[in-house]
């Protein structure tokens, strides 16, 4: 199993960012992202520049072409889009037709960016105000937008805690949504230990195009958001098995993990919540849940269960009862 770090929400001078496409690609490569999506507001004009930069500079980076469709009623990330489409016909009370149009124009994965941001009138259009009737049109939710870095005030303005809770509620209801982060880069980010996205890939996937593999992982809910351990969970007949991989060098997690006081919180689709203090050093955690449960979401904290103490989240396991 391969954990692939990916950065999925970024802007450049092609819209309202301050970094050139070349600078952004070089930044991602330098910081070990491996896969980056370029999601300028309502334009695909940077895609070719990004691909040329990756090739010419021989970067170890794969590009996901993308757009942040910046509507009056929320920002929609469309990954895989090769060309932008008009959004003047978007009906916020029935947006499904518009999402189908995005699919028809190449969107492989459709996500909601910062859905619980402060919104109108302070940040017009930034909060997701569409009425979705069919959540199968959506593939993922940006549960951590880290554009404000590590900043409690900024986190509240962006609404990350609400977004994570919303994602957990939706997946426990059975909707197939992945959880991801987005730096929403407009300026070169400060070097802070923010939550990042890892896609969980099979080894043969990682050997091919990593950008396609990350898209596939999003569609299969094989992602997690973390600023420490990489985790993957399996669920079968009430037995929840969680792999923990502490090898990440992101902010020296591979050296620091021995110092944390881990608290694991698991919620299932029957409404149960299990909280325990596991040993995360041995690489595997086994937890007994209700045999009748079929879905579980997992959070890992350090020290206490405050939102600011979260180490990892967005981890989902499902027992398909096959």
């Amino acid at each position: 199993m391969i954990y692939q770090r990916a950065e999925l929400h970024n802007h450049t001078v092609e819209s309202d960012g301050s970094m050139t496409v070349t600078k952004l690609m070089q930044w991602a490569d330098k910081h070990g992202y491996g896969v980056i999506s370029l999601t300028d507001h309502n334009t695909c004009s940077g895609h070719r520049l990004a691909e040329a930069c990756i090739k010419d500079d021989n970067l170890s980076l794969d590009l996901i072409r993308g757009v942040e469709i910046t509507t009056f009623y929320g920002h929609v990330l469309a990954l895989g889009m090769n060309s932008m489409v008009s959004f003047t016909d978007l009906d916020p009370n029935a947006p499904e037709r518009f999402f189908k149009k995005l699919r028809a124009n190449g969107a492989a994965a459709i996500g909601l960016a910062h859905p619980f941001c402060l919104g109108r009138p302070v940040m017009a259009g930034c909060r997701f105000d569409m009425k979705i009737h069919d959540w199968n049109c959506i593939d993922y939710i940006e549960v951590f937008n880290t554009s404000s870095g590590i900043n409690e005030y900024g986190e509240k303005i962006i609404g990350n805690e609400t977004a994570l809770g919303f994602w957990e509620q939706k997946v426990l209801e059975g909707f197939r949504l992945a959880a991801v982060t987005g730096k929403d880069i407009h300026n070169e980010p400060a070097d802070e230990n923010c939550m990042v996205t890892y896609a969980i890939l099979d080894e043969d996937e990682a050997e091919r195009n990593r950008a396609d593999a990350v898209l596939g992982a999003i569609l299969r809910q094989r992602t997690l958001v973390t600023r420490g351990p990489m985790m993957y969970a399996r669920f079968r007949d009430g037995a929840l098995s969680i792999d923990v991989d502490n090898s990440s060098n992101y902010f020296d997690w591979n050296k620091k993990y021995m110092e944390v006081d881990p608290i694991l919180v698991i919620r299932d689709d029957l409404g149960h919540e299990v909280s325990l203090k596991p040993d995360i050093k041995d690489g595997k955690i086994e937890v007994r849940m209700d045999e009748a449960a079929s879905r579980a979401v997992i959070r890992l904290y350090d020290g206490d269960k405050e939102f600011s103490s979260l180490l990892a989240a967005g981890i989902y396991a499902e027992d398909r009862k096959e």
Partner: protein
Amino acid sequence: MNAYQVKGELPKGFLGHISYETILPEDNEGIELRFTFGKRLMEDPGDQDRNEAGEAWIRNMGREASFEEIDRLIGMEKTEINVSVFHNDAYIGCAHRDETDRTAVISPREASEGFIPWSFRGGVLKIVLHVYQILNEETPYELTVIGKEARR
């Protein structure tokens, strides 16, 4: 192509897309687009403006905003209009920037940031103003499109 210029005023609270379409001559090749609008920041916030900012704050912060916090929120609000260009239904790009004055040049060989290079020979040019928020009455805007003939 002669310069195509339109101007207007928008009322406070307007939300919507404003489209302008024109037929391009066959000997046209590129375009230069200039767009400007005024009154970017709220000029005279009233009680309703302060209440709306306060309601947005409560949703995320879970408590009422202080008078100073409301002032800060009002200061963050802005009139926002962005501009997209279409040619025969192809989406050429968007000038989505936090600026009141924008200029873009698009030709088959090069394009300003936000746009792809494109040949505008004949056909229908559509410019769409995406009006995200208007904070003041009589907010002025002006759009100018100048055609560039093909090289001989």
